[in-house]
């Protein structure tokens, strides 16, 4: 194990940011800490980096207890949301900084530093900007430089705090793929924090979903997405319809409708619960495909690029059902507002209790 996080607790005046968190990260893994803002994920990252101290618990980096080491002795690379490049230094000096501040007994020679910086800048495809200042670079370029700077000191672990959230959508996606590729090449153990589920799903080897200072679930993107442990995880990982439902004889009663299908119930007995359905898992058709189909009327149609979003009103449901269908299906069905359609609900998930979104 490269990082062992044991029972970390951190309280701030008025709330608990981290509540007894334990987590292991394997060597070379790329982990996403996913959660809403204020859930404590950034605090955890900062504690690992030594920029914040935990009230209880310990951090073990490569078999060495580093809980009480100051940030400068931890040997972790930290990439900040807003880059935090040294504005008065050139790109070269930024990347060389971590090497230049080493005590002269271990510091590499000038030419070694130059070689290393040039190598890293090539790696992040920024070698053309070696003499520039950060103010002359775009956000995405700055973040690449920040990454090279963090890698310069050969960190045991690379920590990235919402590294792409300050960038615009297009650049964000590009950098995401690029980072994944970079990680496959250099295999440095990495943890990144994000509130963007898409980013976590696309980038990470393993996702750790955090809410209110606690880990809700961890697993591969596939696991977490397909088998969410609870309502929070289900809801956080994508768009969702929520209906108040009841479980009855292994069937789900939503409103007046008894819905059958491939449910994965975590309840056996009749109890209040909430039914979750992902919009893209809802079937929309002109003709009845089964006797359990619901009948609804299309109230709104939204174009969302490749997908079409429909809002469908169904009697007995407390709110409109949101469905997403491929553009092609939409064109074939020639749906317009006010049309009557049949709705197939195949993968309803029910979780116990009342959970507020």
């Amino acid at each position, binding site marked *: 194990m490269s990082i062992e996080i044991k029972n970390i607790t951190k309280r701030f005046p008025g709330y608990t940011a981290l509540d007894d968190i334990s987590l292991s990260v394997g060597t070379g893994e790329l982990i996403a800490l996913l959660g809403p803002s204020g859930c404590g994920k950034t605090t955890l990252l900062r504690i690992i980096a*030594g*920029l914040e101290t935990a009230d209880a618990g310990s951090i073990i980096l490569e078999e060495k207890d580093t809980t009480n080491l100051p*940030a400068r002795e931890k*040997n972790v690379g930290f990439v900040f949301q807003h880059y935090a490049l040294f504005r008065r230094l050139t790109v070269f000096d930024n990347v060389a900084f*971590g090497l230049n*501040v080493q005590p002269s007994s271990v510091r590499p020679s000038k030419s070694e530093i130059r070689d290393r910086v040039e190598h890293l800048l090539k790696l992040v495809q920024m070698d053309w900007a070696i003499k520039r*200042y950060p103010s002359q670079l775009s956000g995405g370029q700055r973040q690449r430089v920040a990454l090279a700077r*963090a890698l310069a000191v050969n960190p045991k672990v690379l920590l990235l705090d919402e590294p792409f959230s300050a960038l615009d959508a297009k650049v964000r996606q590009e950098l995401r793929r690029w980072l994944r590729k970079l990680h496959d090449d250099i295999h440095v153990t990495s943890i990144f924090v994000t509130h963007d589920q898409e980013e976590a799903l696309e980038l990470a080897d393993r996702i750790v979903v955090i809410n209110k200072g606690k880990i809700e679930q961890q697993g591969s993107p596939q696991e977490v997405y397909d088998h969410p442990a609870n309502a929070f995880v289900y809801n956080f990982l994508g768009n969702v319809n929520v209906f108040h439902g009841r479980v009855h004889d292994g069937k789900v009663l939503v409103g007046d409708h008894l819905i059958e299908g491939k449910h994965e119930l975590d309840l056996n007995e009749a109890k209040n619960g909430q039914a979750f359905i992902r919009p893209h898992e809802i079937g929309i058709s002109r003709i009845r495909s089964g006797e359990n189909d619901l009948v609804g009327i299309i109230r709104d149609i939204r174009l969302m690029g490749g997908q079409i979003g429909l809002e469908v009103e169904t009697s007995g449901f407390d709110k409109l059902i949101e469905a997403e269908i491929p553009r092609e299906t939409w064109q074939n069905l020639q749906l317009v507002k006010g049309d009557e359609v049949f709705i197939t609900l195949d993968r309803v998930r029910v979780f116990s209790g009342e959970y507020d979104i």
Partner: protein
Amino acid sequence: MGYTVFYLSAIVIVPLSTLVFGAFRMDPQAFISTVTSPRVLASYRLSLSTALVAAIFNAVAGFLTAWTLVRYRFPGRKVLDALVDLPFALPTAVAGICFATLYSPVGWIGQILAKADIQLINAPSGIVVALIFIGFPFVVRTVQPVLSELEPEMEESAQSLGANRWQTFRKILLPHLFPALLTGVTLAFARAIGEYGSVIFIAGNLPFKTEIAPLMIMTKLDQFDYDGASAVAFVLLLISFTMLLVLNGIQRWQQKAYQ
């Protein structure tokens, strides 16, 4: 634009130009002999050196104060913050009288200093104390905003890259704050050269010893030597102007280097 030019001319340029014309009306010979007379030279020397010492002191003290005000939260911080501006607001004569009372051999602080055989009153060191007082807010108020704008992330990333506190300060913070610090110090210095009100009460105004340049102007005016007064004033004006030019040059150079 029109307003700016108008006000600038009415408030700054016209009064100053009379001074320049006054000085040029003089016979060059008389001008030179006035401004190079030993007593005037001594006063320039005194003004410049005390102002310089005060400015250097303020560079350190003002920097530390700005640092404390921005980086620490403590009870009374807001009061302290407001007090920094006091030297701006206080009539300089009031400050002067306070100093004279405080540091006189029978004053609160003067008593203590007298025991240690230190005399501030009627001595250049007393002038320095007064100049420190009036120059102090310049440094604090120029450094403070730059310091509070500085993201803590920059220091944090320096730390996590292995830099100790001194390296972080030396290589990251100081280069950032230096232009502001230099501006503040230059302003404090320029102001101190011309300071009159708070100094004359404490200085004792002994010719060749504690007679500052602005006082020379007063002395000459008292003797109805208007030309002489303008000549001395003109040199002071030149000094201030040079300071501002240097300041501007430094700022420009700083900006160019990092753009």
